[in-house]
């Protein structure tokens, strides 16, 4: 579906990452974890094809659905932003037709963002814009969905909403999902696998339970962390990660 083999990107002499293997099938969800400046965004852009690899190969569908961290608060209607996902299939002189709008509306409905349909993007909050971007990504109908720190600008309620949406999408099994995050608990909640960017040439990848061990995470972030299960009434056991300050 989508794969990087021996992938590397460098800036000048410095390798951001190198020798990275990644493959992703529909219904699978991979979380990319790493501290600031370790190349999460660069990796995301490499997967989408926005950044060219300096080394290695990339196999991908012609279009990868991409949710950037932010979008400029332009004065366009949310529906008109979502329908831009159809631009590629519409051709150079095409403008969206009813069928394209139906796809856009369905994408907004799928993530429960119908309420924003007629709202202008610059009148929405950062979290609401994020959802519009996610809807736009779905409206591309690409089987690969890539999100760059989708939760970074969201408050707790909107984070829960995003986590729920990603879980639904994973359960539906149509998309191969890759997202980067600063919140390891999101990886535990949503992802099947985690990719830890330990260093430019050291990536650890595997099922979240195995690879997100206390020792790996503590080494990754350079700060001691503990993983605990907490019994919460009505929710059963909830996995969490606690930094020890």
């Amino acid at each position, binding site marked *: 579906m989508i794969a990087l083999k021996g992938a590397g990107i460098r800036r000048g002499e410095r390798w951001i990452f190198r020798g990275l293997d990644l493959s992703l099938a529909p219904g699978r969800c991979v979380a990319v974890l790493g501290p600031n400046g370790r190349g999460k965004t660069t990796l995301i852009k490499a997967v989408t094809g*926005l950044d060219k690899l300096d080394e290695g190969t990339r196999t991908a569908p012609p*279009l*990868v659905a991409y949710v950037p961290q932010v979008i400029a608060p332009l004065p366009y209607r949310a529906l008109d932003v979502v329908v831009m996902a159809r631009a590629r299939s519409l051709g*150079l002189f095409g403008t969206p037709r009813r069928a394209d709008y139906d796809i*856009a509306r369905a994408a907004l409905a799928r993530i429960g963002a119908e309420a924003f349909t*007629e709202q202008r993007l610059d009148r929405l909050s950062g979290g609401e814009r994020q959802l519009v971007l996610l809807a736009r990504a779905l409206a591309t109908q690409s089987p690969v969905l890539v999100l760059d720190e989708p939760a970074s600008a969201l408050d707790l309620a909107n984070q829960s909403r995003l986590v729920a949406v990603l879980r639904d999408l994973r359960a539906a099994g149509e998309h191969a999902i890759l997202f980067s995050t600063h919140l390891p608990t999101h990886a535990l909640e949503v992802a099947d696998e985690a990719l830890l960017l330990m260093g430019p040439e050291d990536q650890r990848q595997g099922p979240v339970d195995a690879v997100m061990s206390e020792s790996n995470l503590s080494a990754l972030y350079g700060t001691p962390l503990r993983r605990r299960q907490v019994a919460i009434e009505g929710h059963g056991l909830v996995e969490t990660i606690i930094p020890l300050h």
Partner: protein
Amino acid sequence: MTIAAGGSMSHDRGATLVMVALAVGLGLVMVAALCAGRLSLSPGTVLGIVLSRIVPVDPSWSDLQERIVLLVRLPRVLLAAICGAALAAAGAAMQGVLRNPLVSPHILGVSSGASFGGAVAILLGLSGWLLIGSAFLAGSAALLLVGAIARVDGRAGTVTVVLTGVIVAALFSALVSLTQFVAEPDSSLPAIVFWLMGSFATASWRQLAAAAPVLALALMLVLGLRFRINVLSLGEDDARALGLPVERDRWLVFLAVALMEATVVAFAGVIGWVGLVVPHAARMIAGEDHRLLIPASALLGASYLVLVDTIARTAVAAEIPLGVLTAIVGAPVFALLLRQRQRRELTA
């Protein structure tokens, strides 16, 4: 053709209403322009004369009146209309693609290039079609120069394009000054100065026949790309992530804009402000979506330039240079629009 296909009935109706209103406005302005002049005519006479070319109408007017309308005013009004449409659509497209509401089509340096071409032609004693051709060629050369300088490894960022345009414009402005410096103070110098100030005074059917196809082609290109321009206005990464060949699409828009700029300068001299002010006014009527904004700008730009040209030839005994008038009208209108926009944003 649906204009905006806004995806909802009320949205589509609103878009249609805006376009119909602007088209009716343009029609009224054009009739008024045909009526106005040293020899003023009634709207009925003007409409009768124009219609008599299409369907048989019993003439209730003199030969002189007919000749004034058909040979003098009509080609001039039509040329002004299509030039205004082109300049305003070009401005709206540039502001979208470069994601900057302060740019005008002049930013590519094409009008400066075309000015130089025209000035050199006048200096060499050329006029008519040779002047027009020289201006058009130099304007096209300016775009090629911008492209050659701005593109590195086949790519050029929007900021680089703007800065390169400024550089090329400055270069050609200096060359225009140089031609003025070496021009004959009592023959070619005033000719260059007046030509640069802009005018439709020499408009004829033959000029219209040469200018209209080029302008229409470039207008169609920009109108065809109106949804692409929406996507491009999101920014480079976003548009690329949606699978668009951003670089190619952008240069297609630049090419269309350059064609329009070079043609307008070649036939009518430098007419500033239309490409900057009209899109802003159109935005207040039609909104920000380029699918409606670009056609709305074209219609509004056509009305605006016909109106300004009519004022230029009727206000005082001698013709006021068009470029002077568009600036005198444009600057305060732009200031007003800015304030109104600011106020709306504060209260919104």
